[in-house]
């Protein structure tokens, strides 16, 4: 059980890292891109804008 918990902790740290909001934000941004592209609208700009916003917000929080 402890090995399973350790593996879960490792996997979380490996995929999600220091700031879980970044991972969540990436998933949300990709979903929005898929919806907008699926509607036939231009969607290439969503990921760059979301990436800059997520990184800036995370750095701002880390800087206190």
């Amino acid at each position: 059980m402890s090995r399973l918990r350790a593996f879960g902790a490792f996997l979380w740290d490996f995929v999600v890292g220091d700031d879980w909001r970044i991972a969540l934000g990436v998933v949300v941004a990709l979903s929005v891109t898929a919806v907008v592209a699926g509607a036939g609208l231009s969607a290439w700009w969503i990921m760059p804008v979301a990436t800059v916003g997520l990184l800036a917000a995370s750095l701002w929080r880390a800087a206190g």
Partner: protein
Amino acid sequence: MSGAEVGLVLSVLTACAVEAVEALTIVLAVGVARSWRSAFTGVGAALLALAVITAALGPAVTALPLGVLRVVVGGLLLVFGLQWLRKAILRASGLKALHDELAAFEEERAAARAAGVLGGPGRGLDPYSFTVAFKGVLLEGLEVVFIVLTFGANQHNVPLAAAAAAVAVLGVAAAGVVAHAPLSRVPENTLKFGVGVMLTSFGIFWGAEGAGAHWPGGDAALLAIVPATLACALGMVAALRARTDARRSAVSA
């Protein structure tokens, strides 16, 4: 060689060289910054997976859901890239110690060993290097296979297309061997900053493409995404440095 065959060779050579350069960038980045052994193990595993997929599916490989693969690989690369870039920006702006990464890396390895993911000392693999290299090479390798099969089948000459692809991939790999030595001399945090920029850029590109977006200029959009990501990251370093300096001045005043 007929005009059509020359056209086939040039098209496949160029398209495959672009894919190979994308894979090489990722392998060089994680190899130089973290672990060559793990990066090469990832490359080997990806080539093996690629051979098995191609042998098992043959021409049906073109029916694989490349979009799904791109969005998963792109999303993960983007999350990894942002983690690297975040830490590198914090270090470059003086908000995080420059050499704490080694301790964090050892902690991560210890946690991984405890979880049974890695072997003992000296035998362990760096999971980041392995996974990032594996995903990059598998995705780009699949794209090379698609290019060979689609271009080759159109001209009824898959062997010629395969030969052109092999020349492109081997040429890019040779360039990588030449490039890795000078890269090894770049300072650690500068290198990690660069790796973060590259992983983030590829993650943005593949993730958006996999989610169904179309980049203006196709693959050439990467030539704009990489410098734009670098410029944003440098801007964030400057902004954080200015903020830190202003705070220090206010405290000392």
